[in-house]
């Protein structure tokens, strides 16, 4: 018997599911996505008749029904962050790394657990909030169907977006090692950067805004992304690139630094 990727993944799965913060994080993700999705779609249904004709024309029932992900993204970021920073705050990282001296394998094991479990949760939640939203819209507001390719893609990309953000939170935790610092950095990337971009001169703003993680998410979850946004697949590829780069830095630091 020896340490294999399978044994490490199994170990990380036991750790992941055996703490309350994971369960709470998942619960909050579900409640925020579906609950806020229901709230947003209900509000729009109520105001649909008073809405401006141009707004009606560009209305996207898919991304609107997925609106709760804008809040749930913070919950998944915290899940990802705590998966590693809790090991530093408790000191158990030393037990982990003594048991598995090949550190990149620890990261890979955690990543498999994080991506697999979040993908399942986030996809189920995104499909559910989409279906709930369409049923709330139905009869008053135009609706979309998963049978349409672009609609299915947008909904599934909702789950992919949340999963990538969980990995981003994890990667920041790997670098910063502290829960509070990692979570506030994560929050800054998603909340503060768009505000900073908004304060820039108009020409810069349109050039820069579309690169922000939140804008990439919006592009991924739109059936036809608005002007000034990347196409959905380009946005997804760009977000994957960001996450992989941050993760790469995190792995190098984990391998190089003393535990």
């Amino acid at each position: 018997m020896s340490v294999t990727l399978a044994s490490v993944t199994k170990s990380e799965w036991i750790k992941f599911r055996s703490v309350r913060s994971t369960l709470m994080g998942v619960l909050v993700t579900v409640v925020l996505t579906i609950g806020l999705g229901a709230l947003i779609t209900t509000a729009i249904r109520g105001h649909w008749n008073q809405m401006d004709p141009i707004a009606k024309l560009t209305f996207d029932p898919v991304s609107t029904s997925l609106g709760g992900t804008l809040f749930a993204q913070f919950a998944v970021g915290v899940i990802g962050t705590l998966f590693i920073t809790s090991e530093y705050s408790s000191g158990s990282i030393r037990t982990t790394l003594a048991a598995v001296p090949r550190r990149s394998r620890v990261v890979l094991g955690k990543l498999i657990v994080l991506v697999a479990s979040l993908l399942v949760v986030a996809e189920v939640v995104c499909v559910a909030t989409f279906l709930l939203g369409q049923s709330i819209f139905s009869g008053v507001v135009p609706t979309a169907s998963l049978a349409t390719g672009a609609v299915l893609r947008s909904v599934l990309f909702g789950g992919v977006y949340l999963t990538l953000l969980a990995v981003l939170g994890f990667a920041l935790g790997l670098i910063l090692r502290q829960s509070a610092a990692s979570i506030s950095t994560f929050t800054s990337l998603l909340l503060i950067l768009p505000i900073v971009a908004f304060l820039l001169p108009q020409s810069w703003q349109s050039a820069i805004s579309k690169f922000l993680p939140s804008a990439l998410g919006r592009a991924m979850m739109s059936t036809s992304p608005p002007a000034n946004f990347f196409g959905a697949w380009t946005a997804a590829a760009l977000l994957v690139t960001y996450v992989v780069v941050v993760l790469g830095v995190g792995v190098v630091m984990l391998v190089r630094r003393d535990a």
Partner: protein
Amino acid sequence: MLRVDHLTKNYGDTVAVNDLSFDVAPGVVTGFLGPNGSGKSTTMRVMLGLDRPTKGATTINGRSYHDFPAPLREVGALLDAKAVHPGRSARNHLRALAASNGIAPSRVDEVLEFAGIASVADKKVGGFSLGMSQRLGIAGAILGDPGVLLFDEPVNGLDPEGIRWIREFFATLAREGRTVFVSSHLMSEMALTADQIIVIGRGRFIAQGSVDDLTSHAAGTVFVASNDNARLAERLRDLGGRVTVNERGLDVSELVSTKIGGVALAEGISLSELTPQRASLEEVFMDLTADSVEYGSAHVAS
């Protein structure tokens, strides 16, 4: 066997371990003794592949820690009993640890039972006393039935009954032929727990040997009483002895008792007492590390 080979570890400007070398043999309990801040924990972290040596190396049974396919089956360690996620149960903590090295889950129940914490196995570790945490740490260390065991200050926080239990446990591990390496900053503790002792101070090697070796090699004094203490003192001083006079007799150092007896005989002084004073291990330790205590002697006292 554990080997530390010219190990140096710097943290920025701090030299935590300084060109340290020693071997730890199997079959006995080896104490690793030094004042606080002398580099014991650092040495152990390097042994476990957690900290990278600045210079030198440590090996376990001739191999680098990173080369073990399943480290927990070779080396068990307890570095910090409180270093467990407080929200996880003891059982889940051990299950995760076992799974990582392909150790059967049934072994978890065995070690929980052995450590005497089976009844609280499903409780969150955050609520554990330090003593219970130490027991959990010990359960984790023996999970893979390893031949080499490292314990960093394991006695801290244990009640007297727990201390007796852990001492017997170390002795049993050693009798089974395992390598048992136990650190402490408390001399009195080591004297009772360890067969062999390695003393370090300020990251440097100071001494290694059995408790007996260390106490007898120390520059002990000889107590002597005679019918003419004043004249004897004078003669002994002439021969390079350091003599302090007290009301009962003389405390002599730098001269061995046979030499003192010879001098008395030659001078026609009759001796009523001639006793080599064996230094206590505590005194030896104080003496050995006097120059290397980082924050004053308060840390050395038991």
